[in-house]
């Protein structure tokens, strides 16, 4: 059970939007995390270093919060089989569908891209249905 936290949600979201915008403006790249991750490993990719830099920034970001003594509660109440299957689905789906919540949800919809709007609607709907079934019908 988590509380409604509108202020931190708005601030966090704004930071996401702003950092994505800055990234696009300065480097020309879309801050789509799934694409940055899969692009880091793609053999055909000629220039993966900026991706690794970005990912390093992501990895180290909690340290910034620690500096300001900002802590959030976090809990993963998910069983091992679900982590395994879910992880695979997230990787496969984001790569096949060319994006995730950041790439399609923020940058894509922000550009009014029909592909991203559709993709976001689909993954949101499916996610809601999956949670509904797994929480209120079968307990995983």
């Amino acid at each position, binding site marked *: 059970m*988590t509380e409604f*936290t509108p202020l931190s*949600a*708005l*601030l*966090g*979201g*704004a*930071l*996401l939007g*702003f*950092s994505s*915008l800055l*990234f*696009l*403006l*300065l*480097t*020309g*790249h*879309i801050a789509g*995390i799934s694409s940055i991750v*899969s692009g880091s490993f793609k053999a055909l990719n000629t220039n993966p270093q*900026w991706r690794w*830099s*970005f990912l390093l*920034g*992501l*990895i180290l*970001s909690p340290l910034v919060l620690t500096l300001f003594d*900002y802590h*959030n509660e976090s809990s*993963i*109440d*998910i069983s*091992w089989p679900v*982590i*395994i*299957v*879910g*992880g695979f*689905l*997230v*990787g*496969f*789906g984001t*790569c*096949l*569908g*060319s994006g*995730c*919540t950041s790439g399609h949800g*923020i940058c894509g919809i922000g*550009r*009014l891209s029909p*592909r991203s709007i*559709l*993709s976001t609607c689909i993954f949101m709907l499916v996610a809601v249905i*999956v949670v*509904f079934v797994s929480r209120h019908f079968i307990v995983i």
Partner: protein
Amino acid sequence: MKLFISFFCGLFFGVGLYIAQMTNPAKVINFLDVAGNWDPSLMLVMGSGLSVFAFGFFFVVNKKTQPVFSKQFFIPEHKLIDKNLVIGAALFGAGWGLTGICPGPAIVNVLTFEPKIFVFIGMMLMGMFAAQKVLKAKL
């Protein structure tokens, strides 16, 4: 320079994810759990995120012929709505609904050294690898 900027944007982005609490799978699942203890916070996250991005995109980026430190923009051009997009989105949605974890938050959670995060990332990479094979085969 590009490496420096990429690092800082990644840092900023991660901070945003953390403050937004997208890094907390329980928070995400409670957002998706519309029939249960619904926590609409993440709706505001995405709303403010895409609004800020849209504003900047249409008022600043769109007016430029090239980015500040790069020769070109790498914005996806293809507009086709195809099977891959739809099926990919559905599969991602399923995985996200099952775990409450998507790629960005998974990476930001690396320093928690939580074993489930590492396994998630490992499986995610395997999934991406498999999808790349599928995409190559279809060509």
